[in-house]
């Protein structure tokens, strides 16, 4: 067990830190949170800068056009970006973390050629059309149907909670190609160009007041068979392949941001005087202890991936433990703001000491709420831990879809 970085790792960090120090000040002003075209332009511009500097797809294999960095370098990359307050992966999320990696392993040479460089350069934005109104946790029950017609699929159905759909060029779309009750065995993975006739996008407001996700309505949408990744009816396996790219770094930026949020909460408490309350201090100390343990878990998972080349169980434990800590932190900062949390604008700092991070804290608290739901709810994570890791018997009626 060694937490010191090697010389090569330190050099990687130093180079990156230098590049970030030179680049971040040249970025355009951040668009308003509700200005989605502006956010797309901002995020893809950042992706282009990463690309030009050789940092695009830092974790992608070299064959896919990535940098092929080690898991530890990937961790350093995310640490340094957060440290420099660099832009997030933002609208590039699905392309870089899901669609791209899937095409690298399962796509044809033509598909790789056509889609991967555009993702890395920030030319194309992708979204993920998996969930449906009646198929969330039980994704294998999805019904959006694709029927073969010559060398095209004709698609009818709908998708929901599709993040960044409004600004996406492509969608990684799961469709039913097998019989209605074929579950995992009858799903196909398709590339859907978002400007195809018959695709209707209806923005869906989140409880945080943002329209980051949308509903997709698909009516007689025609997609060439050449857009299929993997075999027909083999889409479930194709989807799972993406998971093998996860090396424990998915939440590094988010977690480091939580450390910062705790620090600003402490600063706020000291300014308002709440810090003299031992209860407040204890909550802060407890939260820091939990965040440190979560960071240790991140380092363990990354180290495991570096040793074995496959994702361990750490990511699942993290996914289960992190949202609770994050939500406690949200409640903590909100309770420190007190009634100032009711008007979510930055406070002027009437005490003359500068503005207080009120708006950020309220945003953060709201966003934190989605962590127990998005990408697999905490209940589903507990089923996975109980059944796959601990070997407990399955629910009588298939909690993770065994009945299929």
């Amino acid at each position, binding site marked *: 067990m060694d937490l010191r970085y090697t010389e090569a790792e330190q050099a990687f960090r130093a180079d990156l830190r230098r590049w970030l120090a030179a680049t971040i000040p040249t970025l355009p002003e951040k668009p308003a949170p509700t200005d989605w075209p502006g956010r797309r332009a901002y995020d893809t511009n950042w992706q282009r800068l990463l690309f030009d500097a050789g940092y695009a797809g830092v974790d992608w294999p070299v064959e896919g056009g990535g940098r092929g960095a080690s898991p530890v370098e990937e961790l350093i990359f995310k640490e340094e970006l957060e440290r420099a307050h660099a832009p997030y992966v933002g609208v590039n999320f699905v392309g870089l973390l899901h669609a791209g990696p899937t095409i690298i392993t399962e796509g044809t040479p033509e598909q790789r050629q056509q889609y991967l460089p555009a993702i890395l350069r920030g030319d194309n934005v992708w979204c993920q059309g998996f969930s449906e109104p009646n198929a969330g946790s039980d994704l294998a029950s999805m019904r959006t149907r694709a029927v073969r017609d010559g060398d095209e699929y004709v698609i009818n159905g709908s998708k929901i909670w599709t993040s960044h759909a409004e600004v996406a060029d492509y969608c990684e779309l799961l469709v039913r190609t097998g019989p209605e009750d074929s579950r995992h065995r009858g799903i196909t993975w398709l590339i859907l160009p978002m400007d195809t006739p018959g695709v209707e996008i209806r923005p869906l407001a989140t409880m945080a007041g943002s329209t980051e996700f949308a509903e997709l309505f698909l009516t007689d949408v025609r997609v060439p068979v050449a857009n299929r990744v993997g075999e027909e009816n083999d889409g479930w396996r194709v989807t799972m392949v993406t998971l093998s790219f996860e090396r424990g770094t998915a939440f590094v930026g988010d977690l480091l941001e939580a450390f910062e949020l705790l620090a600003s909460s402490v600063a706020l408490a000291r300014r308002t005087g709440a810090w003299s309350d031992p209860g407040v201090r204890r909550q802060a100390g407890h939260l820091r*202890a939990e965040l*440190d343990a979560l960071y240790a878990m991140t380092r363990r998972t990354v180290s495991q991936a570096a040793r074995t080349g496959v994702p361990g169980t750490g990511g699942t434990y993290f996914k*289960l433990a992190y949202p609770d800590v994050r939500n406690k932190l949200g409640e903590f900062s909100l309770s420190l703001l007190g009634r100032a949390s009711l008007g979510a604008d930055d406070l002027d700092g009437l005490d003359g000491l500068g503005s207080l991070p009120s708006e950020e804290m309220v945003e953060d608290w709201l966003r934190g709420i989605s962590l127990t739901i998005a990408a697999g709810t905490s209940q589903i994570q507990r089923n996975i831990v109980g059944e796959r890791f601990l070997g407990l018997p399955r629910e009588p009626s298939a909690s993770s879809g065994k009945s299929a």
Partner: protein
Amino acid sequence: MDFEPTGIQGELAEGIRRLLAGAFPLDQLRTRENQEKVIDRDGWTQLAEAGVFSLCLAEEAGGVGLGLAEATLVFEELGRSLVPGPLVATHLAAGLVDGAEDGSVVVGMVERPSGPSANVLPVFIEHLADLDVLLVLSDRGIEQLDPATLSARPSRRPMDPLTPVWSVSSLPEGEPVAGPEIVAWWRRDGRVLTAALQVGLAAWLTDLSVAYAKERQQFGRPIGSFQAVKHLCADMTTRVELARVGVQAAGVTIDQPDVGAPDVVAAGAKIVADEAAITNGRSAIQVHGGMGFTWEVPVHLAYKRARLHATQFGTADRLAEMIADALADGLGGPTDVG
């Protein structure tokens, strides 16, 4: 950076686990429940021979010369096996008290109460009848006392049946043997080692619960198929995983102080491990149902031991306040060091 245990570290833990299974089987330990002496001197010597007490002592001083990181692996196993006795105290005393390192001297430890409520409650001392030396820690330093000279009252109802306790209304002055810098160091390392014991308890409680959940049938199926039970178990193992890496990271940070803030992560490790052990104790009882409330099922032994550890080297609230002080002093995040 490579935070995975090395092959040698893995073998160390494995070796200790094998030794403990042979030398400290639970049914034998249980024959000593509620007795005034619970330490088996042969077993204690075997622990010493395996390096439990001399692990972190320099090789020149007759020790094994390993770090606290390795010690966390060993102490997790000791915790899991419910080995009774002042393990942490004797480990810390190796190098200061002759004979601690080779197991010939059993060293106990107690904090001298301070502050406004110091004289309200008596002072409780674990394992007094088994001790050869008692060390008293305070902010001023460490004093040594001869346990035989104390007029102490044994408790008729020790909370942990394998940890007999005595009370004294006040502690006499002892012979000074070390200064405040050693106290600070011992408290910090003591937190990490006690936290490692807690991880072992938390893990053992999980194992017992998972095994029971697979075997116990109700409504015609194993209770572990019910989510209400399954999710308790999933949360138990998640707590263990989190506490374990926290404790190991604290051990490494103490061995390699330039990678973090050793005092902060030591305190944090104990907070998270205390919580894992205590909460898992409650969950384990729940998973076992009525059997969980019996004396026969050993779950309560681990739960009570966890409660005992929670009182040692600083309670979670006290430790959280220490971390809060560091935060107020501008403690940075994990990327602000190294």
